[in-house]
């Protein structure tokens, strides 16, 4: 981990990069659980919500919804409420949640306690990606330590609050990261998204008000309460970027919201691999439309990226260099969606499979000139017709690639035609 250049003032990664943070003594010596204690014993829920609102915290799971606003949607008077932690982290190129859980599971536990006490939930489920075997062991141990310390269970921190935390491993479906599909899965059914409204905040797990929150989002909470929202904002506000692909040092980087793509790649991740040129980058996982060289100075924040026709998503920056063929890159992305489509709705289930078939033909030298129009046509049929964002993520990137890298498609098709097939 020493190879990674943590920002001098890193506020989140500080917890992760310090050795021994999986142990509660170490975590407490560094000030851990002080924020949760204050929330449980000193602050009113409204005060906490005010602080979170002032921090500007937005969800880190992909949708970027303002966190405090989501908390306000939870009906105060409801007798039973849940917090569900989205630890499914399935978006390709995203590995910040895993880094947080494995580096400092107590940070997540503390964030959970803050959220649960504030909205008045007594039961918390952590829906954890099945492949996080190590993370699961560390989380289980951290929860046990916190329980022994009186921070989890009845009367936490000596207050009247009770919070139970249950870790629930998923079964390896990307769609189970979508919050309503996650709730279906948690209830024991096939992970397929639910119709919204009602939103989970009103009728979520077992039809009770439920706060679904990403792991990283929750990990910001102790920092916000600890530093105060003003200082937190001054220090960034911080975001964890998962940088992967053709860079010298792939990894998780903390950088202020609005850092440029160029700075992330060249200052933080050590630049492009020797002898290679930047070609494109997905700023928010494969679900986001890729950026090209002309966009290197775009600011990595939700608004700037929206203007650039893409999104921050889960802040997973996947960097593609000039050795990669964009047709192959897109084919790989489409295969992912084909494999991960839940199968609920027609356009995504059938469209992704069809597009993947067309790509396969093109890649195997059997492309036809009319295939590009066909791909655009299928994408058009999927646009705005899918049930959930998974299927809706396919057309924009595909259409952009057909526009920006059309020559690469055409070369492929032409090469196939002269292959003598």
């Amino acid at each position, binding site marked *: 981990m020493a190879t990674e250049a943590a920002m001098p003032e890193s506020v989140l990664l500080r917890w992760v990069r310090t050795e021994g943070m999986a142990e509660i003594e170490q975590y407490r010596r560094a000030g851990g659980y002080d924020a949760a204690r204050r929330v449980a014993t000193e602050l009113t829920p409204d005060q906490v919500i005010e602080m979170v609102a002032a921090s500007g915290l937005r969800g880190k799971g992909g949708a970027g919804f303002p966190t405090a606003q989501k908390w306000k949607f939870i009906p105060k008077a409801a007798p039973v409420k849940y917090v569900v932690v989205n630890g499914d982290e399935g978006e390709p190129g995203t590995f910040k949640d895993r880094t947080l859980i494995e580096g400092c599971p107590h940070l997540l536990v503390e964030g959970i306690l803050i959220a649960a006490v504030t909205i008045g939930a007594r039961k918390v489920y952590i829906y954890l990606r099945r492949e996080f075997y190590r993370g699961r062991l560390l989380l289980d141990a951290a929860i046990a330590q916190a329980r022994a310390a009186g921070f989890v269970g009845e009367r936490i921190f000596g207050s009247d609050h009770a919070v139970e935390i249950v870790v629930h491993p998923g079964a390896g*479906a990307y*769609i189970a990261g979508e919050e309503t599909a996650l709730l279906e899965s948690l209830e024991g059914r*096939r992970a*397929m998204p639910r*119709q919204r409204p009602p939103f989970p905040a009103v009728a979520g797990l077992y039809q009770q008000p439920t706060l679904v929150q990403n792991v990283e989002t929750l990990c910001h909470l102790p920092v916000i309460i600890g530093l105060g929202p003003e200082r937190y904002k001054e220090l960034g506000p911080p975001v964890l970027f998962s940088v992967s692909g053709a860079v010298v040092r792939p990894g998780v980087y903390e950088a202020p919201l609005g850092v440029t793509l160029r700075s992330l790649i060249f200052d933080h991740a050590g630049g492009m691999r020797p002898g290679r040129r930047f070609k494109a980058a997905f700023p928010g996982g494969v679900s986001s439309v890729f950026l090209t060289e002309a966009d290197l100075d775009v600011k990595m924040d939700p608004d700037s990226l929206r203007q650039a026709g893409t999104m921050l998503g889960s802040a997973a920056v996947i960097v593609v260099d000039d050795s990669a063929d964009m047709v192959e890159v897109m084919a790989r992305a489409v295969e992912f969606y*084909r*494999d*991960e*489509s*839940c*199968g*609920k*709705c*027609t*356009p*995504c*289930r*059938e*469209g*992704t*499979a*069809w597009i993947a*078939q*067309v790509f396969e*033909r093109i890649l195997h030298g059997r492309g036809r000139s009319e295939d590009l129009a*066909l791909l655009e*046509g299928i994408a*058009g*049929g*999927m646009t*705005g*017709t*899918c*049930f959930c964002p998974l299927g809706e993520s396919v057309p924009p990137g595909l259409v952009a690639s057909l526009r920006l890298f059309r020559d690469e498609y055409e070369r492929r098709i032409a090469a196939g035609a002269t292959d003598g097939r």
Partner: protein
Amino acid sequence: MAAEAPRTAVTLMIDGRGITVPKGTTVYQAARSAGVDIPIFCYHDRMPPLGACRMCLVEVQKMSKLQTACTLEASEGMVVSTTSPAVRAAQESMLELLLINHPLDCPICDKGGECPLQDQAFRYGPGRSRFIEAKRDHAKPLSLGPVLALDRERCILCWRCVRFGEIIAGDDALKGFERGFASEVGTPRALPVESKFIGNTIAICPVGALTSRTYRFRARPWDIDPVASTCTYCGVGCSVWLDVRGGEILRTRAREEPEVNDAWLCDLGFFGHGYVAAGDRLTTPLVRREGRLQEASWDEALDLVAERLRASAERGPGRVAFLGGRRLSNEDASAAAGFFRDVVGTPHLDHRVDAPPDGASLGVSWGLRSSLEDLGRGDVFVLVGCDITEEYPVLWLRIKAAIDRGASLVIVHAKRLEIRRHARRELLDRHDRLAPLVAALAADETVASGERVHVLLGRLAMDGPDGPNLLRSADSLVRRVNGTLHIARGRGNDFGAQRFGLLPGEGGMAAPGILQGAAAGAFDLLYVAGSDPATAVTDGAAWESARSGVGFLVVHEAFLSETAQAADVVLPALVLPEKDGTVTNLEGRTLALRAAVKGPGQARADREIFDLLAARMGVVRGHDTATRIEPVARIEPAAAGAGASPSLIVVVADRLFTQGSMAGRCRGLIELAGTAHCLIHPADAARAGVTDLGLVEMVTEHASVVVQARVSDVTLPGQVLVHRGYDGVPVHALARWSPAPAGVEVRPVAPPGGETP
């Protein structure tokens, strides 16, 4: 000037027309109410919308994306287009996508001609496909059980069949497997599919993916004449269409009747018409000559019966008895009652052939004490010895719907019912120890706080050793909670037989008394119609001695049943789907029967036979309508049975699918019935050295039968469960009528020549 709309109504525009609907209505429903067609696949109006197929997309002003009409709630001032270019393009896309992998099976597909996919493709499809890849290729069809086949290539994954099992039947019979493009429907457990309602999934499948194995490739919809009639198996009286071609019923479908079966049937009804066309129907009268039943003319047979009846009358009144009624129409029952009471002059008639003398069944009239609809509005249901899915399947769907709306289910039984996971409480004990459980229910919070408590007392409770006690306990329970006690007893048209007078008249004997009387020589002639007492009487020996004690036995039958085989005269009878008339269901509702097909040979309707006999006896009768005779409703339980309790008892239970005379002649149902077996609890099995699927000998004081054992905790310790209605397991031979539970010994039988491992 427009009338002021109530606050609970909203007005929206669909395709330029103003439509006012109650708040909460979806755009799809609003459009439909105004006659605007929006194509659908996944939506089914008996289930909440899912929004999966995306076929119903519409354009709504001020909404950036197209919306699914089936999920979108209509709101005030909404402006909707179902025909805009964007909508048309989306409809074409959805159909193109659904069809890329759909096989070109239309020419041979059962659904062809009544297929929503065909219809929508015709109306809204693109007319051509840009798909040049290889279509999905699956082995076809997949057999999911004796009655159900799945063609995965045809499936458009609308999820209706899966959700039917989750939402309507509650049996989770079908589930989705794999993901995305590879998704397919399958069974969550091993094959065959486990459901009593699977026919409905065939009915609601919008394509030919789920088909009936008994109907596959047998007809095209345009060749079929549907006849509106009523299912007469269990007594719920579901409305059906009998689809007829060339004088044969090829298929049964549910006919919508919100007050009875809504839109559903159980599989007994769905697959239960095959017996009508069975090859062994009786076609001519049979008369015993030289000890053998031989074909005779109607005149010969009727003259003989009339002569015997007259001869008996000369010896004195009341020397003739009548048994049966379950398989008669109301009109037949009324004709029979009139004939025996007025023409023959006997009070000894009873349809309750399967009731034992000591239980509670003879002391109380059978059926519900409220309408099915009222029952469906209950907030607490207590099933006492009532195995609802085995006995009144479609009634369960109503209770399930009530449970989903918040009602509670309490089960008191001697068996773990398949619906137990829907129950709030399950009170189990051995068959002879159920009464205290019911008594204790008065203290149950759920039951006590119920506002509309419905207690269903079933056959297992009523006819058991503790029947009278259970009836008393259940009766006092409903009095305390101001609930309703239903007597869930009777099948077929037992309720019509009861209503139209097939009950003992003044001084008449009930069925067990008739049998005992016959054995003692009290009758010259025993007359049976609409029943097979040789298998139905729960004490087989009582029937045997009745038969030998009576000089002359006349039977109306469609088949050469065990009773018919022992008769002196057998008159070939039409079955209910061959008759016009009515039946009465368990709530007392009159339901119409329409003759779907002609009967075989010279078979006649029962009432016609009675009229012909009456004429021969000098009385001309006409029965255009059935005359109702008020049954005597009283709750006078007999004294409770006492006696020592054996350590292992045998309990006879009802099952939906049996090898009975009707179901046993229907393709599909025979396989669903499977083979006879007994259920023995693991603890008892271990003690007796019985292994699962091994053969065992069940030995009682009176008989022994060899049957396959299933070791299962569906039954309880100390009790072996066997089902009625299987050939080779004459359960009625195992025990005698007795107020005490019947003890049994179970021994493993070594396979012939085999070593025990």
